[in-house]
Each structure stands twice: as C-alpha cells, then as structure tokens.
C-alpha cells in the first residue's frame, strides 16, 4: 500500500506542497490565515476521502475544503441573496 500508487494522504500532501507556493505570495496576515485554514480543511477529511477512493484527487480535496467551510456556517444563517445584476 502506498508504494505502487500513493495513498490519498500522500497525494494530498504532495498537492498541498504545490499550494504552499501559492501561499508564499500572499501579502496580508488575514489572507495567510485564511489560506492555512483552507489547507487544514483539505486535510481534515482525509479519512472520508480515503474511504471514497476516487481516482480524482482534486474532487476529494475540494469536497473536503467545501465541507470544512459549510460545517462552520451557522445553521440559522440566512439564505444567500441573489447576486444583484
């Protein structure tokens, strides 16, 4: 396991290493904090992503990030307003 093909966790870390380059060019502490929270979100659901075993790394990664954000929205948040044209 993890030799012939990398495990999800290995592939994820590989990808996040690339993303790290992105983070290097962020200029404000707020953006950097948000970026690191995003990376944490990507890692948080590694167990679930492994369980799915999707051949598409990005699918699982983005799903993790989105869920991490969605889970932190208050349950009684007002529905999103339509974007004004």
């Amino acid at each position, binding site marked *: *396991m*993890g030799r*012939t*093909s990398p*495990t*999800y966790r290995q592939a994820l870390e590989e990808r996040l290493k690339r993303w*790290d380059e992105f*983070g*290097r060019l*962020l200029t404000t502490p707020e953006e*950097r*904090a948000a*970026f*690191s929270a995003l*990376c*944490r979100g990507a*890692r*948080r659901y*590694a*167990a679930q992503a*492994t*369980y799915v*075993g*999707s*051949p598409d790394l990005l699918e699982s990664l983005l799903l993790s990030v989105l869920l991490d954000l969605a889970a932190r929205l208050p349950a009684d948040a007002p529905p999103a307003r339509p974007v004004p044209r």
Partner: protein
Amino acid sequence: MDGAAPTPDGWLLDITESDDGRSVVLWAKDRRTKVVRRTAVEYRPPFLVTGARPHLAALERHLARDPAVARVERRVARPSLYDRRARTVLSVTPERNPARRSLARAVDAFGGFDRYALFDVDLTPPHLYHLEHDLYPFAPVTGRGANLTATEPAATIDYATPPLTVARLRVTIAGERRGRIAPPDGRIGTVRLEGITFEGPEEEILRALVDELARSDPDVLLTEGGDAFDLPWLYRRAAALGLGPAAFQLGRERVAFGPSRPARTFESYGRLYHRSAAYPVPGRFHIDRENSFLYDDAEIAGLVDAARLSRLSLTTVVRQSPGTCFTAMEMAHARALDAHVPWKKNRPERFRDGDHLVAADRGGVIFLPPVGVFDRLDEFDFASLYPAIMVRKNLSAETLDCRCCPTSPIRAPGLGYRSCTERVGLIPRTLAPLLARRLAYKEAMRRPGVPPAEAAQWKRRVKMLKWILVTAFGYQGYRNARFGRIECHEAINAYARKLLADLIPAAEEEGYRVLHGIVDSLWLRPIDPDRPTDPAGFARRMSARFDLPLGYEGRYRWIVFLPATTHGLGVPNRYYGLYEHGDFKLRGIGGRRHDTPTLVRRFEHEVLDLFRGARDADGVRALLPRALARADLFVERVRSGGWPVDELLVAHRIGQAPEAFVTFTDSVAALRQLAEAGVARGAGEVVRFAVLDRRSRSFRARVRAAELLAGDERYDAEAYVEMLARDAETLLAPLGVDRDALLDRWGAAPRPEREEYRSPERTDQTVLTGP
C-alpha cells in the same frame, strides 16, 4: 480413544541438524531424571518437483546421473493448494541435507527457471521431521529416537510447560565496564552464570564455566547482548588460549567456534534493523534479549507456545519475526491438507489498471481526532479484527475468486472479490484455532483465583499470539509471503472500512457520537451528557449485529488528543489518557519513543503523575500551572550542570551507511568517535550519545558516544532545555502551551529560524477545541 493420554517419559526440547548431513539430532529431556538425551536419527527428506510429463521425464533422467542425488522417485500428489486433481511429481532426495538448496537451484536452472515448480525446498530437515512425525518443540513424548511419539497434539491449550532451567550469563572484560568498548586484546575478567561468579586467570575462568555448565546443565542461556558480545567473546578468548571445541563447550555437544548465522541488516516498515550474528550452543537455547524481537513481550512462556505451534526451534523463534512463525504455522496446516510448501511463489499479481489500484489499494479507516482534552469517553476495540474477518469471510489466496463459486454471496464491499463457499481456505484454517486459543488464554488469565504467576504466563502467551495475528494480515500483502495474495489484503481492508462506516450510524442510534476511530478502535462520547449510556451492552449488541467481537476497553476520566506540529490538526496515534480503572494509555508521546533520553521520560512521568489526580477534563486544565512549575524545576536542575550524564543519552537508529551522511549531525559525530575507537556501526544499528556542545564543529567536542562516556562530562544544558521545551509542547499543546513561549519563559535563546518563510500553518498554532 479413551481420551486418557499416556504419561509422557519426558519432553522433546529441540531437533537440530547433525554435522554428517544425513540425520537430525533429537534432544529429549527425561521427566524423572531431568537429563537431556541426544539421539541422532537418520533422516534425509526429499523435495518435490512438478512440471509437464516430458519435462519431468527429462529431469528424472538427468538427476539419475547426479552424484548429489540419493534417490529420484515418481509419486502421485497434490502439492499445491490450487491443485484440484492429483498429479505425477518427482520426489528428489539429496545425498546430503545441506545440499538441498543448491540441488533445488540446479533443478530450477535445468528447467530454464520456468518449467518446474518446486516444493518443500527451504524447510529445514528438523522442521520437516516435526511435520512428518506429528512432533513439535516441547512436546510431551514417549519412546526414544525414531520411535518418539507426542502424547498430545500441538494444539492442546492447557498443556504443562516443560521444566526448563534458565541460567543468566554475563561476561565482563578485565578492567572494563559493561557497555563500553572492549579493547581488541581485552581479557575476560569475570563470568557470571546464574548467581555464580568466576574470577581469576582467564583460562581457569573458561574451564570453570564449562565445568559449571556441565554440572548444572541449564537448558536456556539468557543474556543481554550475548549474540553481539558474550558468546563471540567467549569463543574468541577460548581460541586465543588454545582451547579447542573439545575443551570448550557451551552447548551439550562440541561445535566449531564461529557463528551459525551471519549478522544481517534488513528493512521493515521503512525502518532499518540490525540483527547480530548467532553463535551455536547445540542442545541448549541461547536467548539474547537484545537480539530478540519477541522476548520482551512474550518471555519464555510465549516463545515456547510459538515454537509448539510453528514447529520451529526455540532458537529460531527467538531470533525471527512473528511473521516467520506465522508462515511456519501455515506450512503445518498446509501439510495437514497434504499440500506442500511452494519454494518460490509463482503467482504474479493479476493485471489491474490504475483506477482499480486507487480503489482497491487502501488501508483501514483512520480518523483525525479533534485536538483537545476530553472526558466521558468510552473506548471500544475489535479483538483481532483482521484475522476475524479473514476467518468469517474465508479470505485466503486459494479461496478468493475461485472457479467453483461464481455466484458466491460473500463479496468484498466495493471490490467484488468473491470468497469460496465450498472449502475453507488455508489462512482461515490457520487463524481460527489461533483466535480460539487467544480467547481461551484470556479467559484462563481472568479466571477467579488464578495465581499471579500463572496469570502472567497466560498473558505472555496472549501477547505472543497477538503479534502473530497482527502479522497474519500484513503477510497477505508481502511479496515474499508463501501463501499470501495482495487481493486478500485489499479485501480485508474493504470489509474493515465498511464495518467502521456502518458503526457510525449504529453508535448514534445508541446515543453515541464518534469522536475518533482507528481501523479497529473507536472512541465514543455520549451525545447527551445527562443520558447514561450502556457501553457493555453496546459492545454486546454490536458484536452480535456485525458478527465480529467488539470489546469495551473502558471509560476515560480524561484523554488528551495531541496535534501535529506541522499543521495543528489531530494526529491519529498521538494521545494520552487515564481510564476510570486507573491505567494510563499512552501513544506517540516521548516516553514511548526509543530515542528519548531518560531526562525527558522522567519529566513525562512527573506530568502524568500529576494529572493522575484529575477527575475530568477541567481537572487536567486546572493542573496546568503546576505542570509548568514542574517543568521549571527540571530546567533549573538541568542548568545547574548536575544531571547525571547517563540520563541524557539520546538514541538514534542509523538510517543509512555512516559514510553516506552528508550533513554533520550529532549522530555523525558519535559515529566518528566510535569509528576512531575502532567500533564500526552500520545502517540499522543504534548509536547513543550525550550532547556536550551542539554548536561545535568538532566531532570530539560535540557529543560523547555512550560507550565512551566517563560520567563526568559537561553537557550542553541548553540543548536539553530545548528537548524539555519540545516535549512539554508535545504533551501540553492542547492546553495552550507552545515551545517558543516556554523557551521565552525560561530565558532561553529562541529557536533559530530555519528558513526565511514560515508556513502560515505554523503561525496560528492555538488550542483547537473539539466539536
């Protein structure tokens, strides 16, 4: 059968190969006199060759002219587990036993490496003798020599352990302390053998030792480092003094001086290991605690059990991994099915595409726990989950996707691999009795009124079996495993993953939330803290529902899940907690690591001791100031310069050949010191040292290797203050402690910035709270 076994005359201790290459030597201990008798029995086992008829005929003609071959015969057999019908095989008996392997290689080469399949080649004659004669190490026996018969089967659970006499042996070089490097011309100053110390002129010591061994006649020599030091040194000095094998005999028969098995370095799970050479003491067993993976957990009671079940000599069991024992157990079961042991596994992995690999090649479910301090947590573990799955789902190389059951309802979730419903596979056959055994041992251990010494013995057997059961799974995926198959490995994981997924809603139905889970363990917390849960009932109901044994490990007063230093999220296997029944469970913290200096272990002990008083999570949090005060005291004492240097030893396992290191590290400095003192250390070995001046560029000033330690060295206090800070952070991070703040508190220089850019993930390492 009237069920009453005949009273044994004694015990078969061991079978060894004899020097003449044509027989094996049986070592049996008499029940009344306790004398160990040596009997040589002529025995030259054949190996089997299969192949197409014309090829077999060609080989038969070829071997008939070979002087290394005693006999070639045609037989009818079903050598492979995959064989559905009997077929003609050649049975080849070598002239001399040691030639088995070279002869087999010649046969393989004669067939162009693909025309013949060979069986039973690399089983040793003693091992085959056991299998063929229904014998096993430590069997109670009647009769003698070739008529030796076991009075009960190896599978007997409640057996009487043979009375083995154990003698501790310890050699010291004149004028030297143990553990220091002995000079090449060093003489033996003292030898201790189980309470008796021999001193005086060297030759007298050696002769006295031989006499005492003959008099007390111990079965087991127990040493600490005997393979690397005591035995080679004894033989070396005996040779230097002109004592030959006739005069200097540590075993029960004379033997040439020299190792019977060379030293080797090997890799396992990404780590390099080193095994010292083994020196023979024929007729006795030598257990080197430092060269034995299993001894520390299993001790003699466990090792005897493993030897009985695997039919491997205790000498082998001691030095080999549990995987070797498991493979040998499989061999015994294969032979019971009249199958033979393939020499090379001629079964390549089936071709599968990349997507299938991603889907199939996954491990068990491993959650990331929330970082923080928690209480009211119940822990549940499946007992031997993977072996139990293998047994329940009949997972074995020859029963997976078999041709006889295309519509089998037993299918690996998500992968579809079918299990045979017609016959029981070799792996389940091997594992089922082991699982039953482990349960029986556990029950015996907990029987009311069982004397502590007996309970301890059961416990060691349980531990031994645990290791063997753990390997059973891993060996399915190991390319050299004789009866393994990667698809089994994948199927087991698939069943286990599905199980954990099914348990999440099942636990919620019972009022539990899953806080953490690793493969076969679950940490659950009541959803409503005021509604009492029924953990024992939960375990029972889940065991019944999933037909796999879930056990209730206990409730935690509190447990701390620790973060990774890199990204601050929880780490699956790094936590410490206190059960309500008063035991700690520690995983991944300093004290569990082999490289941690005693200083750090002591600090951890103090903190844990302090936290022992906490009733719940709040209690732990309230104790933080006192934990930090303890840390302050440690720092103060370390800085006073008076901490004993031998408690400051850091250990490092050398991960590569010493000359391959490119940066100058503490380990490199220690290795150079050792090299200068004439001691070579290779990859896989451990180097231990105290840090004297971590900034020094000189390998002599930077550290001091443990073997060269005088005891009065001045150590680098700040290096150890940093280690304390690192460890305190590891333990206390969830309580808001961080390393830099600690260093600041202690007025230490801040850690040097390794790189200009610090990953943003590291700047906000704060306490994360659980859900």
